[in-house]
């Protein structure tokens, strides 16, 4: 995943595509999702596509991390991995 995100051309994705911000951050919609959409086309009536955003999604600045993002710091290796970002840490990572 890290490899792919490095290859992202952000300027192009933001200004020259119609992808939603969600799609840009999480990657483009995968093939499985698209197939699902096609299946629905057979029905005479199609359900109105549920919007990506629910009415209560907040315009909030503060982000909350999922708990696995927080518990990873219990791991000593993980804990030591960011020592080089402090002035007290050595320069070689």
């Amino acid at each position, binding site marked *: 995943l890290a490899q792919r995100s490095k290859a992202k051309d952000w300027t192009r994705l933001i200004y020259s595509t119609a992808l939603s911000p969600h799609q840009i*951050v999480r990657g483009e919609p995968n093939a499985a999702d698209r197939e699902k959409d096609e299946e629905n086309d057979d029905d005479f009536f199609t359900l109105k596509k549920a919007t990506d955003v629910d*009415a209560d999604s*907040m315009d909030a600045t503060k*982000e909350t991390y999922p708990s696995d993002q927080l518990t990873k710091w219990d791991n000593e290796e993980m804990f030591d991995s960011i020592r080089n970002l402090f002035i007290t840490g050595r320069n070689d990572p």
Partner: protein
Amino acid sequence: MTAASLNYSGHLHFRHRLVLSVLSGKIIKIDKIRPGDKNPGLRDYEVSLLRLIEKVTNGTVIEISLTGTAILVKPGIISGGPVVHECPPSRSVGYFLEPIITLAPFSKKPLALTLRGITTDDKDLSVDLIRTVTLPHLEPFGISDGLELKIKKRGSPPLGGGEVLFLCPIVKQVKTLNFVEPGKIKRIRGISHAVRVSPQFSNRMIEAARSVLNRYIPDIYLYSDVYKGEESGKSPGYALSLVAESTTAALHCAEAVSQPGVAPEDIALQATRSLLNEIERGGCVDQKHQTLVLLLMALGSEDVGRCRMAEPTERTIQFLRDVKDAFGTSFKIIPADKSNQSSHLLYSCYGTGYVNTNRSLA
């Protein structure tokens, strides 16, 4: 400047779209605001924000449709001066302060805004973070003398009862930003507060956070902020906010707020680990302040501004698109390191040379 209006759909990104409309002077129309919801239309805090914008400006016309699902705003000039506003208990004062901070430097008279309501909650930046992190972000843009946020009373959810005073100087133009060196973390500061509960909770949080952070760096000062009686609001609550400062004055912050049934030590641990996440992500500006810095870069004097940051959030992506609609400014976003050492990106743009035309000539 073109006369075209800004047209959007949906309730998302409400705040920055209003800000862009007021700054650019373009009319903004937003429709389809929660049309299919059981409770359609604007929420009470959104209406309250519109009223606040009406108060800090002069000549703003706001039309809200009968169902509340569509609005039209014709922005007036930003007038500033003394303003008092009651924030509804559905959102904290941070929700209202964030957009106002971007408008205030461009007003006619220096703004002295009193906001009453909840001062710390789990959705918006708390007043502590705004005071210690958001406001220092304005300094490199030349907005510093007389910039202040005074926390007069604290107020925890659900009832609030807090009060803050925001003072902001006016500027003619903002300076161009050139911030590409993230530096290394040299110190960590924090504010711990507990209102209407035992003040010991505050000390327990400080101890727990110290036990982890001291392993990285000795320069840690966590302050226990005590508010008593009337000054402590109507509801009990406590929180810990942490700020890591680098050698180049890059700030990274995190915060955790009391939850029912969770020990103060665990709240402190949550704040501490969130801070480590922020430090790991790195860059000169954290993700919470991306839009603030990018907006001021776009408004900067006619020169190339540059800033190194982590990847944009979903909010930031939409914000960049909306800035282009309002000001025609687009950013160039390229990897910061050629060697692909980090995932940092370099954001650069040519400032629009925005001039504060509201400012009264002395």
